[in-house]
């Protein structure tokens, strides 16, 4: 194999890959970033600010596109060009276990249109198994990751308020966003029950002095942000890494496998060019997988060979197992009666954030309820560009129309993220059918169902949400109790988990493979548990920390030595 030998190859350019290349290049390492999708600058205006009536199908996907993106329900006409059609990389699941696998395929990955909620985990999360005896602890503690949380927050810009909540550490925030009328009304109910409702911490620029422009409150974040105020790796980490002169980027490069040498070290990767369908290899001293949880796991499973028959780095047998995510239940739309008929005087859906009830059960006493672990509520309120509640109101005619309008400014919404326990029954594998995608790469088969603990937690969420609404005087218009389809939280994690015992874990506390010392996995696959919080800020902090570690190991010429068997904690 000819061509340059990079210090590091990073596979995937989303949250994880962005943070990794940022830190690697800052530390002076010659880095190659391979991204399966094209480069689309979200700031180049397309249809971002079109009104629905200016668009065909009023801004909804056509029937044909609904079918093309059937497994990828986050797709809308505005972000479609960054999304992966099912046929490009098919996947399967048992008939009775439908799984939704939402995937972006463009430079920046899912951060191009993600939800932006950015929370720090705490030692309540990292030492979870010590607290309730389930699963494994993380091999790190808050003190190990805190400096990297700060680094990431300062680099990407996170708006938030300092709240001194023990299980939700404060960060380095830009000015917090204010709450809207309905959220304040909900807050009063939440506080009556002894909980907190705080402004969501969001990766959006609210400061007037920052390297990226400030938000202009158009509220189109789930489309693509035309100002760059919303963090995506495409507008933040990647250009910053390019400024160092150390980064080379190849887009439309789909990585098939990690290649190993005779001694069992990673020597590079093989990839296929999406346009020409030609195969290439690239060489490096270090390989960093950041293709998103299930894609990185798939690459490791596909990289099986004589020495690694069940997948690369899988001597523990844990690769692909323990698949976890969040349950989203208690999806409530309610009405705050005092706000009926009162237009707010400004477009409330221009808000790029929302509000948040931090995890509150099983915190001080981990066995407070009939389930373990906990959940959070996401809440938002007010007028928006579509009155979805109209579909839930009975009747028709002039009175119906008046009620739609009357309720429109009074709407309050809630949903949850609950920790799904990591269980070996929830796993991914290469499809036993042997099916492959158009590039000949094996397809993934995904197995995930919610367990008893998850269902007990879901019951609690639903009851608690109704209790909050009662306490706040909010009338419930609709309440969907059942958890949404597995996968829909888009927070899949844990399939190549880190842990301090190599018999139980794939990675050490620096996201480094126990089996292949110059191989790192820096996305959500590395999580030891899902926690009840959104994963991405932690993914980025861990990826930046791994980047530092890689630079240290290369400096010390220790990349090809096995790390200590026991790490940290």
């Amino acid at each position, binding site marked *: 194999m000819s061509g340059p030998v990079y210090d590091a190859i990073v596979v995937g350019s989303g949250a994880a890959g962005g943070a990794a290349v940022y830190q690697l290049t800052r530390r002076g390492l010659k880095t190659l970033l391979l991204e399966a999708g094209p480069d689309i600058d979200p700031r180049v205006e397309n249809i971002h*600010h*079109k*009104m*629905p*009536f*200016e*668009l*065909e*199908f*009023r*801004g*909804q996907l*056509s*029937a*044909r596109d*609904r*079918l093309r993106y059937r497994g990828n329900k986050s797709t809308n006409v505005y972000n479609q060009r960054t999304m992966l059609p099912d046929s490009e990389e098919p996947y399967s699941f048992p008939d009775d276990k439908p799984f939704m696998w939402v995937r972006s395929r463009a430079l920046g990955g899912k951060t191009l249109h993600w939800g932006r909620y950015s929370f720090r985990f705490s030692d309540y999360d990292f030492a979870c198994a010590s607290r309730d005896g389930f699963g494994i602890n993380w091999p790190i503690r808050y003190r190990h990751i805190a400096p990297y949380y700060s680094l990431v927050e300062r680099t990407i810009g996170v708006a938030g308020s300092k709240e001194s909540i023990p299980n939700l550490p404060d960060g380095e925030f830009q000015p917090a*966003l*204010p*709450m*809207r*009328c309905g*959220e*304040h*009304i909900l807050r*009063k109910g939440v506080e009556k029950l002894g909980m907190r409702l705080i402004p969501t911490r969001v990766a959006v620029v609210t400061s007037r002095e920052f390297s990226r422009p400030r*938000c*202009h*409150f*158009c*509220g*189109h974040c789930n489309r693509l942000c035309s100002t760059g105020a919303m963090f995506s790796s495409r507008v933040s980490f990647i250009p910053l890494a390019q400024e160092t002169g150390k980064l080379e980027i190849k887009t439309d490069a789909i990585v098939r496998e990690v290649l190993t040498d005779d001694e069992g070290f990673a020597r590079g990767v093989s990839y296929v060019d999406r346009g020409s369908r030609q195969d290439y290899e690239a060489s490096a001293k270090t390989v960093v997988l950041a293709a998103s949880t299930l894609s990185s796991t798939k690459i490791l499973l596909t990289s099986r060979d004589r020495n690694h028959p069940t997948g690369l780095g899988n001597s523990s047998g844990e690769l692909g197992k323990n698949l976890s995510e969040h349950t989203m239940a208690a999806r409530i739309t309610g009405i705050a009666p*005092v706000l009926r008929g009162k*237009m*707010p*005087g*400004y*477009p*409330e*859906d*221009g*808000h790029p954030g929302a509000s948040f009830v931090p995890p509150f059960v099983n915190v001080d006493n981990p066995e407070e309820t009939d389930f373990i672990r906990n959940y959070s509520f996401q809440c938002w309120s007010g*007028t*928006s*560009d*579509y*009155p979805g509640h*109209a*579909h839930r109101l*009975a*009747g*028709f*005619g*002039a009175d*119906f*129309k*008046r009620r*739609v*309008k009357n309720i*429109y400014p009074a709407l309050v919404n809630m949903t949850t993220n609950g920790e799904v326990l990591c269980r070996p029954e929830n796993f991914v594998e290469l499809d036993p059918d042997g099916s492959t995608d158009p590039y000949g790469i094996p397809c993934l088969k995904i197995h995930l169902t919610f367990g008893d603990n998850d269902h007990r937690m879901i019951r609690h969420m639903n009851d608690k949400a109704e209790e909050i609404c009662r306490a706040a005087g909010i009338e419930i218009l609709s309440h969907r109790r059942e958890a949404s389809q597995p996968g829909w939280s888009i927070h899949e994690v844990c399939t190549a988990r880190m842990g301090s015992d190599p018999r139980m874990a794939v990675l050490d506390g620096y996201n480094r493979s126990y089996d292949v010392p110059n191989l790192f996995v820096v996305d959500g696959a590395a999580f030891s548990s899902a926690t009840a919080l959104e994963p991405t800020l932690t993914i980025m902090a861990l990826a930046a920390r791994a980047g530092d570690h890689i630079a240290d190991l290369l400096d010390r010429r220790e990349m090809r030595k096995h790390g200590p068997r026991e790490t940290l904690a």
Partner: protein
Amino acid sequence: MSRLYKGFVCMKRREALETIAAGVLSLTAAQRDLLAQSDWEAQVLSAGQARTVDVLSDLIIPRTETPGARDAHAHRYIDMMLYRGLLAAERDAFLAGLAALDERCQRDFARGFDGLPRPEQVRLLTAMHDSGDAFFRQVKDLTIRGYYTSREGLLEELEYEGNSYLTDMPGCTHEEHHQ
């Protein structure tokens, strides 16, 4: 046009661009509604079917002090959805429901639904609503979608002010909601 929200300047995107280009605030031509063109032709619905759908949408969201579904050409929206917006099964269900309604009116009144007196139409629709009729649900959902995504429904009825540029996010400023 720049609008003032209690001190928060709000501009439509194009206005902002023109403001920057011209150095002044200017009124702009309104955004174009794709379904409002004068030479509209149905792709799926026959003339009679289009009339019936128009009447149904007008019954569901009538004109009041503000425009209704008819003003917003909801039947054109529905035709567009039938053409390439709905899945085949959804489209077939809709057309079957429409045919069944027509048959029933022909049988009972010897004319189409659109030819019935308004009170008779309301009576029929009420019965369909109360019995949880699937076709009624479908027409109602499509009418809602078509109306509230139209210029008339979104801007005139709901007085939607978003899709704008703001200098700040005001949030709730009502003392009484904070205590």
